[in-house]
């Protein structure tokens, strides 16, 4: 299993993803510079990591959309291969039209870095198989994570079961307080119609080791394998 980690100018989560996948047996990764991403055929899956591509000076993800890497990513997705965009990667996937909706500045206007809970709403993706209904604890770190869409799109996304993650409290209730950025209907992540493309604002790569406070991200990333391997005991640190 070979995973491409796309690197645009300003991307900063690619090395974090590389480390996270290094803990998943059987997954190889390669960081791919956006100019060298014309052909992704040798990869089985692709990650669009977080960061500030092109400084996000226009609108998060808006310039990255124009990169040749994004065009080949679209082809890659059309072929049905798994794509995961986190944080700025989610913004890029929305800007590229691979995912519905758009991400605006947080309702509180400030960047927010924190731990949040999300409930897995759809297990019909390569990243969430077997996780349906589970409440995961993951970090966020973003200034533009307010997912919005017109009413019609929201209704479509909900009706087709394309909401993948929803911000909730630790018991799984989608409350106002649990929504860190004002996203419509507490939506934290969505998928493409086919299900192979998923975007989310939280950072699964930041929670793959107990030493750093949690391992729920490992469950998402390890899902890529045909037989997902549970969190290895070596990763656990009993408090």
């Amino acid at each position, binding site marked *: 299993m070979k995973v491409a980690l796309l690197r645009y100018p300003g991307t*900063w989560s690619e090395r*974090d993803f590389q480390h996270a996948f290094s803990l998943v047996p059987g997954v190889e990764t390669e960081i791919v510079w956006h100019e060298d991403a014309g052909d992704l055929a040798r990869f089985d899956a692709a990650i669009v990591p977080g960061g500030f591509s092109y400084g*996000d000076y226009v609108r998060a993800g808006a310039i990255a959309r124009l990169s040749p890497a994004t065009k080949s990513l679209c082809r890659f997705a059309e072929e049905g291969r798994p794509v995961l965009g986190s944080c700025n990667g989610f913004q890029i996937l929305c800007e590229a039209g691979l995912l519905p909706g758009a991400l605006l500045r947080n309702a509180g206007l*400030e*960047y927010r*870095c*924190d731990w949040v809970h999300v409930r897995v709403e759809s297990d019909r993706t390569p990243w969430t198989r077997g996780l349906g209904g589970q409440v995961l604890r993951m970090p966020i770190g973003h200034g533009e994570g307010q997912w919005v869409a017109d009413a019609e799109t929201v209704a479509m996304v909900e009706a087709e079961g394309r909401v993948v993650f929803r911000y909730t409290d630790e018991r799984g209730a989608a409350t106002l307080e649990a929504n860190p950025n004002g996203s419509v209907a507490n939506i934290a992540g969505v998928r493409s119609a086919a299900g192979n493309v998923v975007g989310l604002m939280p950072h699964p790569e930041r929670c793959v080791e107990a*030493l*750093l406070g949690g391992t729920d991200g490992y469950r998402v990333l390890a899902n890529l394998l045909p037989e997902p391997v549970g969190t290895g005991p070596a990763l656990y640190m009993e408090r």
Partner: protein
Amino acid sequence: MVTGTMTAKPDLPREAGLTPFEAERVRALAGREPNPLEWAMFGAMWSEHCAYKHSRPLLRSLPSRGPRVAVGPGENAGAVDLGDGLLCVFKVESHNHPSAVEPNQGAATGVGGILRDVFAMGARPVALLNALFFGDPSEARTRRYVSGVVGGIGSYGNCVGIPDVAGHVSFEPCYAGNPLVNAMCVGLVRRERLRFANSARPGSAVYLVGSDTGRDGIAGASLLASFELGEGGEEHRPSVQVGNPFLEKLLMEATLELVERDAAEAIQDLGAAGLTCATSEVAARSRAGMRIDVETVPRRAQGMTPYEVMLSESQERMLVVARPGRERDVEDVFRRWELHGVRIGTVTDDGMLTVTSAGEVVATLEPRWLADDAPEYDVRAWAEAPDPAGGGAAEPTVRTEGAPLQKVGLELLELLACPAVASRRVLYRTYDQMVGTDTVLGPGADAGVLRMKGRRDGVAVCIDAQPRVAAIDPFVGAASAVAEALRNLVCVGATPLAITDCLNLGNPERPAGAWQLERTVAGVKAACEALGVPVVSGNVSLYNATRGRDIWPTAVIGAVGHLADVASHIPVTSGRRGDAVLLAGSAAVSLGASAYGARLGMHEGPVAIDLALEARLHRFVLAAHAAGLVRAAHDRSEGGLAVALAELALRDGVGMRVTLPAVRGIDRRVALFGEGPSGVVLVVDPAHADALRVIAEAEGVPLWTLGAIGGDLLEVAPVLGVPVASLADAHGHGLARTLGREA
């Protein structure tokens, strides 16, 4: 007033910020009258900011050597050896005056500058810290400063993708018009990849890479950073640089790739005094000359003069000297990272820094005149303690003894919510604390803890200051800041390795300012010697004053410690029900310089620190942790013992039942809220209490058993019983409420 047709001859040295004495020295060195550009270059390089004129003789007295020191003061940053060939590079630096004039860009570019100091040495930055000092947070002006500065730090660090892992924030009236913004960066580098600016060889090509050069920040070092801010600081706004963190990120990756490919022989960031500083320092340190052509420097604006190009402080620029024959590799790396990098000159063997423009020589000076030959002033010659000097046993202005105790629960809640004590989360949650996936403990813990991928050991970092104590006695304040920073490392289980210091003071030309500077350095020195840590890097920011009133002497201490096994750091926990709660160290506390006292308008001495006890306390806590006895540890700092206990209870929301240590002459209120150095609260399994006592006795550290973990209340018998949930609400929301951000 008579005005003639003749224009008065401009006083060039004075306009460059030089005194008549300094101007004479320049003429003597050059053996001629410099031209206007040369005067400006001297002015920038001989500014307080670049040359440390008033502090250098004192700074030499600081201990800077030790078995773990890999790079001492004088380089872009200092470094300690972590073992197995890995070095930890770090430095703290001020960006006070730019932040006072333009808080957002001033703070942002402060972060940018300290990042470049670290990656210019070939180290990958892994953590940022900051120490911020503002006026009263209920004032509108302070709120503007807070949101500007915090927003600037966040927007820059978040975009570059370096986590913010620890910090310090003070709110005191003396900073109202002159806030302090000190930023610290920590990086890691393999020893063989460490780069210095001292290895440029004649014939090598000199590149300027990064941002195009504009008219921003011209002469910022000499004119803005090295004098007091006057009325109408807005006039200086053009002297403040504008940051571009996206470009910084590319510049960082490109620089690290140049180092990895070993294509550069010298790298220097452009900070204060811009191209003048970078070219003269690389040439001086390499004992070489350099010839550059300002016409080749890419510009943002048309019609820029050589003066503007040489003195611009445009951000996100690096000077790179290519290894001979590797010019193409250097250019490839620039291109790959989509950076504008051009060859602007050559290293020469004539020993002169020569600047040309359109084929003409516009400046020619020996680099060391600029970089090394600035005068030094020994402030001890005119230092004089202000009257009254403080520190004496004056009559207390406010008496608290005998006041009824039934309201202490309420007092504790008010104290927990007050700006000196309340959680800083409302500020630090806007900084990314986890990017890089190395943050084991982030802001809110006694110290930040970082793991290093592929290694078992870890690094602990923190940044502290004690301005309220220093206002009474700058020596004790500075020593206490060092002690607190190291104590915080010890509280996460880390062995202190070294510190970096940023000394923020007022005007050193006044006797009181000179005295404060001398006492502050003496305090840092005494504490470092007693506690066994060297100072490996640092920065001095003088002339922090508004309308002739100096700030309190503010020694900011950034400390780095080592954990042999990062997984077994002392965690942030309340402990388990039934665990014993103890106080180790000193129970000698007072309200004079405390946060509690401040709320009553009290600010008085005496203040003191027993550095020998402090050293024993550190050894004791580390020995107890090494023996596996410590479940939790927390420094007793702002708010005293009561706040330290409350903050422990908050960690997991578990209460405790304790009594106060009985100390003669200290009444209950003082025992609860009084502050003093050398105190650590420990939580241990009761089965380990005896073993702990044995170690304490061996190290000569007093130990008081206070009580036990359990219940939903913080109970201090017989005076106090407050639900932990109420403590959490006060502590968690106090600062946001004071800043007017939430109801």
